[in-house]
């Protein structure tokens, strides 16, 4: 199969050639190391059967029984949390919101633990973004700030930055980070900032761009002379872009860092064309924000307790719901909170019933009360995912899922029907 879309990271590379023989994937071309694993090892570490926890042991059950048990957990919950979604396709999101709405629960996606702060910054300031094709066609100055694409988005540089551009000849690549990352080693310029000083550095650059003089000799480990030179170069760019990562969103300052970057870029637009873009990790976390926004009005952390959507990151976000022991049941879809959440949050996961829907075994499958295997979206079922710059792409199905294994959307829809029956709706 040609032109298959890789459902691993937010780049959604769509030039993958997948060789299929006898219903199995036997070869992959054009993918990065991460993408190769996504395809070639699609069948490894799978949850093979629905299981329910009984007397401390996981017992294999028919799918219908697992669905019944899941529906029982959902309908008897007083405050349900539905979480995950960023590694599955848009139709699964749809079913998740519908289920949360039905029982007056909370639904959150993984952006609350990655680029949630970026969204808060956008709500404060807006954001001039870029599209990846336009970056490739036009950008002459590309900065990765607190992001390490060589490790996390391995083809980002090759496809969009070091590729030939239609309307640009020379292009410079800078990396701003607290350490000399793998990406810094392939950059034209590496700017090392002191840990925790991104906000100061961004604000200083903005002050210089706006013609202010700062009465200090250095900021965040950078001499004023270097900062001035950076600012001058940024103003003289034709088309500049900052790709920012979790180095901005998940360090001290969080949304303030991103806000400072946005305001810097907004002001730079009085001198040159500039944009920025968050380096989204999970392949459809952008889609999760989009579907949540058009269906509930809000991009993440949505509560339906009153029958209509309300939004409160810090309260309805998954980690906070767990740490505050506010939810009494969880439906986890295509994510692994037990592996990635803070210990206190994971402890509460251990206390309450968890319905885990995922193709693979993971940490959450070891604490769940019910495990329901799902098809791998983009490999075993189709759907839509959204690239980090907002481009929706149609994920293809390359091979059939294992017998009796359904896409997330169908599992969730079956649970919905059962719950609606139980609640008499």
């Amino acid at each position, binding site marked *: 199969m040609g032109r298959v879309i890789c459902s691993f990271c937010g780049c959604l590379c769509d030039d993958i050639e997948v060789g299929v023989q006898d219903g199995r994937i036997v070869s992959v071309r054009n993918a990065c190391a991460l993408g190769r694993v996504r395809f070639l090892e699609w069948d490894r570490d799978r949850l093979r059967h629905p299981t329910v926890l009984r007397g401390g042991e996981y017992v294999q059950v028919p799918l219908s029984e697992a669905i019944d048990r899941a529906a029982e957990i959902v309908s008897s919950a007083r405050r349900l949390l539905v979480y995950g979604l960023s590694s599955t396709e848009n139709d699964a999101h749809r079913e998740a919101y519908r289920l949360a709405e039905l029982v007056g629960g909370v639904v959150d996606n993984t952006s609350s633990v990655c680029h949630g702060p970026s969204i808060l910054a956008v709500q404060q300031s807006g954001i001039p973004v870029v599209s990846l094709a336009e970056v490739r066609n036009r950008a002459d100055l590309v900065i990765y700030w607190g992001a390490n694409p060589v490790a996390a988005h391995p083809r980002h540089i090759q496809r969009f930055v070091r590729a030939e551009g239609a309307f640009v000849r020379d292009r410079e690549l800078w990396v701003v980070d607290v350490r000399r990352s793998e990406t810094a080693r392939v950059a034209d310029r590496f700017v090392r900032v002191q840990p925790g000083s991104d906000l100061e550095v961004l604000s200083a650059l903005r002050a210089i761009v706006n013609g202010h003089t700062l009465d200090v000799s250095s900021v965040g480990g950078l001499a004023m002379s270097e900062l001035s030179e950076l600012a001058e170069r940024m103003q003289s760019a034709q088309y500049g872009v900052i790709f920012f990562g979790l180095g901005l969103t998940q360090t001290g300052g969080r949304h303030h860092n991103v806000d400072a970057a946005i305001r810097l870029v907004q002001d730079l637009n009085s001198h040159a064309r500039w944009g920025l873009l968050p380096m989204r990790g999970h392949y459809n976390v952008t889609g999760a924000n989009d579907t949540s926004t058009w269906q509930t*009005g809000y991009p993440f952390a949505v509560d339906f307790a009153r029958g209509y959507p309300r939004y409160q990151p810090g309260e309805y976000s998954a980690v906070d719901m767990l740490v505050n022991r506010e939810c009494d049941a969880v439906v986890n879809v295509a994510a692994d909170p037990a592996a990635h959440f803070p210990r206190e949050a994971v402890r509460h996961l251990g206390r309450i019933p968890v319905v885990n829907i995922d193709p693979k075994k993971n940490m959450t499958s070891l604490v769940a009360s019910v495990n329901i295997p799902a098809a791998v979206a983009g490999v075993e079922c189709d759907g839509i995912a959204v690239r980090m710059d907002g481009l929706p792409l149609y994920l293809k199905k390359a091979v059939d899922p294992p017998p009796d294994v359904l896409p997330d959307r169908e599992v969730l829809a079956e649970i919905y029907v059962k719950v609606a029956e139980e609640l008499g*709706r």
Partner: protein
Amino acid sequence: MTRSMVLKDCCLYDPVNGVAGEHVDICIRDGRVVEREAGQTEVIDVGGRLVMPGGVDIHSHIMGSKLVHARAMCPEDQRLHTQAMTGTTRSGTGHTLPNSFAIGYRYSVMGYTTVVEPAVPPVRALGCWDEFRDVPNIDSALLAMLSNSTITMHYVEQGDISGLAGYIAWTLRVAGTFGVKVVNPGGVYAWAHGENVTRLDSPVPDWDVTPREILRSMCMAVGELNLPHPLHVHPINLGRVGNVETTIATLDALKGISTRTRGGSAAHLAHMSFECLSSVEGGGTEWRDIASGGTVFARYMNRNRHFTVDLGQVTFGPVTTLTGDGPFEAELFRTVHTKWSNLPVDSELPGGGGVVPLRFSPKSLTHSVQWATPLEFALSIDDIWRCVLTTDSPNGGPFTKYPLVISWLMSRRQREAWLDAVHEKTSRRTALASIDREWSLYDVAVATRAAPAKILGVSKWKGHLGPGADADVAVYDLRPEEVDLAHNPTLVLRALSRTYLTIKGGEVVAREGRAIKSVGGRLWTCHVELDSELAGRVESEMEEEFIPRWYAHAPENYAVPDRYRTGIERAVHREAMDIRP
């Protein structure tokens, strides 16, 4: 299974069929209006209430990535106007930017059943097809933004109208779009260089083309393709004092371009309120010099018949400006300093569109004049069949303000009350206070149903209630003979805000001001059959040259797959076999 219904004793306003307030019965079978209905039939006696065809909105931003972005950017807007879920309807939020479900329900509660999304970058049309599944109770169509596409620039520069027409037909087919939208032609492209265009003959960077050439070429291509809807135009210089001159020059540039079947209409000018500003005598282009260009433009319209218009009426209160016109939004941001997003879309919107939240205040002279301009225009034109009522939702205000707009048009008394409340100098900058005219219910039915359906090119099925029409019906809780609406603007507001019954495709979807059902809508598309040599040429240029060169994804992954169209797409077919390859 045959499902049928008779609406008894309708006081019908159906301008397409020349009906103005006659009492008739309307028969419906299988989602269509039929001549008569015999046998087992549900009969609803509407008791002489006002009945109109389902409303048709030709320009309202209801879907797409920029709307999704704007909602996510403005939770302060989302908090307002919440609606809890019911057994048959989903929950809703949002004032100027409602979520998808609320958009459908609120339109159906007002009696609207067709709403066009006018600004879609085709490469992202898949997102609209996905989103539309969550917009209940209305049919829709997507207009493709192509006036700043790198590919358009290529064909225009080459003077290759056939190629451009082929590109448009290709786009309509693969992206499932219905018509073509122009947004600040050349200006949005120039914005990729941090620039804009201000004159029809300004140069566009990277290419040897001008806004005039882009407009004329696109208009010719759309004409040759014989598309149902003419070129939908958002001109250059939007939102600038004195821009009525540019707008008239733009329309002059399109005069005489031949169109095959649309009665000579070459273009539809969108949201005229933002592009028909004039200045005081001897004034310049500063905001303080603003004056209404409504009368000037109405005079032009009365003398020139080659275009149609929608109002984009400005209303007071919070709005969200969101357009494909990125440089305009950037300029607005520098004026109002609220928040600003800029959203480029691959090579189709190189500089990008934008979003800036705003509040129109009656205390502001600028805003008051902007409010008066489209009213002055609408009350000065001869032919309401060429005029559609819109607010360019959410730019001039949310679509839920249509009843208020209608009350201004129908009632001089209402206008006087509002003129008293707006900036005191407004009457010196507009002629609104001196206008006596009051739109009738018939006029309203024209501008909200008949005209938009006709301009859109779907008047066989929409905008009227003759046999064969889609059974989209709005019943309002108002008996027109019993009231003098011009003297009761409050009654206009109340009656038109909430229908007594809204019927979509033969099903009652709203009753007494509440949506009671969620029915999936249909998306209109247009398929044009071309000479196979031209189709083949453009396809290979697109797939082998342009997409690989200018986009960052594969041509095979551009099209909206059947999986998302099945059961939703409603295609209009056209033939344009005689366009030379």
